[in-house]
């Protein structure tokens, strides 16, 4: 008898979670732009509410189109289940709110998306949840920051904007030694480049706005449960291991085993916080996921070409991309991200703030905006935009030099992108 063969990744991007629509035989996933679903009779209604039968009740909690996206991303990540959320921020909040309450503590990489930093540094303390930020390159820094009340370790596969790579296996070991889960924001790499569960992470989320959807047309997030963490053995997560008054005394670990976290996140978090995804958004993201392998391959190929060009350019001070030999995480990236380090990186243009501004304004194919992960190439110069109020010293403290330019490489012909950058770099150096 032949050995077992799992359905492969590229096939899952097209098929996972969906069969031809049973109602219409439509091949594509239909947009169920629907709020609620008819019960067969009173007992059927009660049995769905009481988790005896499967099915949809109300689209804030689950929806047939969203369910396809959720199952597909869970399949691609190798998890047990997922929840689609209104944004990546909503996915991060859902993870945290499912695991902990006031008095808890998080240890986070300091190199994270600004929105995530705002949530952890400024907003959650108001709700009694504190965060310590540490150097993502130092697993021992995570260890040293752990307190008795710590409930989560958090990092991004590739940081923003200097592309710091988190040593997921090492940080996961630290987390597990302390009975804690590791949550990874895998937005920049997608499951095509990195599958954090295989490296030891326990929970993953994406801003699906970026590479998963890939076309800059929607806002959305996905939270995925790896099903690997032993909540019972940890003893630190009463939301998962003790009877929940909000669901008739349900003990999620007792009843759902490896799916305890994602089930609580849906039964409580989706129900009560309500940050659900629109079914039309889920449909758009699904279209993107169907071409994820093709797009990511091209994103990475174009990025490598541009990085090579910039490294050799006289108007460029430095390029921060882990595949460049002098990047501090070069060896780590080779080990964890052999297929590529994504398509977002930064470089320093000679001439500081003024040159950076000139470069941005001279670019024609690269769009100047605050997003990444579009099919079109994007660029931003923090010193003259998002961080324009900071002086040079404050910028350096934030890890952003005056000449730093962040690029998100798209799917255009690489020659055109290189020529656009070449023209803009020349313009940046003119007095």
């Amino acid at each position: 008898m032949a050995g077992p063969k799992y359905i492969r990744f590229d096939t899952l991007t097209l098929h996972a979670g969906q069969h031809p629509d049973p109602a219409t035989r439509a091949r594509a996933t239909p947009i169920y732009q629907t709020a609620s679903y008819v019960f067969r009779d009173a007992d059927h209604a009660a049995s769905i509410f009481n988790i005896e039968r499967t099915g949809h009740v109300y689209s804030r909690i689950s929806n047939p189109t969203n369910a396809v996206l959720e199952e597909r991303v869970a399949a691609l990540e190798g998890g047990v289940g997922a929840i689609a959320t209104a944004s990546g921020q909503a996915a991060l909040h859902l993870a945290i709110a499912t695991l902990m309450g006031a008095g808890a503590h998080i240890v986070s990489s300091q190199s994270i998306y600004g929105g995530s930093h705002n949530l952890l540094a400024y907003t959650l303390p108001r709700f009694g949840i504190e965060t310590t930020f540490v150097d993502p390159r130092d697993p021992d820094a995570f260890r040293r920051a752990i307190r008795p009340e710590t409930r989560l370790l958090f990092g991004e596969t590739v940081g923003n904007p200097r592309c710091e790579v988190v040593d997921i296996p090492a940080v996961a070991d630290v987390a597990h030694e302390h009975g804690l889960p590791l949550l990874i924001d895998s937005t920049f790499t997608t499951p095509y480049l990195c599958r954090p569960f295989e490296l030891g992470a326990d929970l993953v989320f994406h801003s699906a706005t970026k590479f998963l959807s890939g076309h800059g047309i929607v806002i959305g997030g996905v939270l995925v449960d790896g099903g690997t963490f032993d909540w019972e053995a940890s003893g630190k997560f009463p939301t998962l291991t003790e009877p929940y008054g909000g669901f008739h005394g349900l003990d999620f670990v007792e009843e759902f085993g490896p799916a305890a976290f994602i089930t609580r996140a849906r039964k409580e978090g989706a129900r009560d916080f309500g940050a659900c995804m629109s079914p039309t958004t889920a449909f758009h993201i699904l279209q993107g996921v169907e071409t994820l392998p093709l797009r990511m391959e091209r994103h990475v190929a174009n990025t490598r070409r541009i990085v090579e060009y910039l490294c050799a350019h006289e108007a460029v001070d430095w390029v921060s991309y882990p595949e460049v030999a002098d990047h501090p995480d070069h060896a780590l990236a080779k080990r964890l991200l052999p297929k590529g380090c994504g398509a977002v990186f930064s470089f320093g243009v000679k001439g500081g703030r003024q040159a950076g501004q000139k470069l941005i304004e001279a670019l024609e194919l690269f769009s100047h905006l605050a997003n990444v992960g579009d099919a079109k190439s994007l660029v931003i110069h923090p010193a003259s935009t998002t961080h324009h109020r900071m002086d040079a010293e404050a910028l350096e403290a934030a890890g952003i030099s005056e000449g730093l330019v962040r690029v998100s490489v798209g799917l255009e012909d690489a020659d055109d992108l290189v020529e656009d950058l070449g023209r803009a770099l020349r313009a940046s150096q003119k007095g």
Partner: protein
Amino acid sequence: MELTVDGRAAYAFTAAKALDPAQDSVVFVHGAGMDHTVWTLPARYFARHGRNVLAVDLPGHGRSPGPPLPSIEAMADWLVRALDAAGIERAALVGHSMGSLVALEVAARYPERTRALVMIGTAVPMAVNDVLLGSAEANDHAAVDMLTVWGYSRHAQLGGNETPGMWMVGGTLRLLERAAPGVIHADLNACNAYRDGAERAAAVTCPALLILGEKDIMTPPRGARNIAANVAGCRITTLKGSGHALLSEQPDGVLDALISIG
């Protein structure tokens, strides 16, 4: 609920309800390497409909400590002692895969304890592939892979879970990966060694129902003929398109069939 069976702690899920001696009981027995969580949905249903439910963790599985039991016969005897410990005189016995053999063995040898028999994803004999047995003996992850991939119909390997947002293949992998070393091998070995199923079926006197998966390649529907032919009045429900993991692939179809046992 916590039980003590043979002087050792054991666990059974009761859907958060206290057992009531005045009610009929439904007892669920999981398959190889699994635990009580595979029964959460039907157990909750029967508990809300006035039945005592007892979804046991066999020794060495889920929350029941100790070494796994070496044979179907030993599991059957253990189950009867677990019923004793729980104060359940008589019950409908519902088993999946290996658990279906345990239920059959109890129904045949302890007819006074069995008011109905339901065998889900079943066959007698339940021969186990040598490669799978060998991998399980070596505690090789390949055994988990085989049980997972072969456990689902090709259709279900692409998903389409009736439970929104859940990836069935991932769920089964994680559950099997939790089995302690040696447990999956002991279970599969017990299934493989159980050769008296047809004779035991002939001794069953209670109402019996088989719930089979049309696309089950681990216990193909034809493998249940030996049971159906030997149990008087045996009914068969075949779920179209389902593989061996019927409880994951078609939970509502399984429940609809189970409801008929009352």
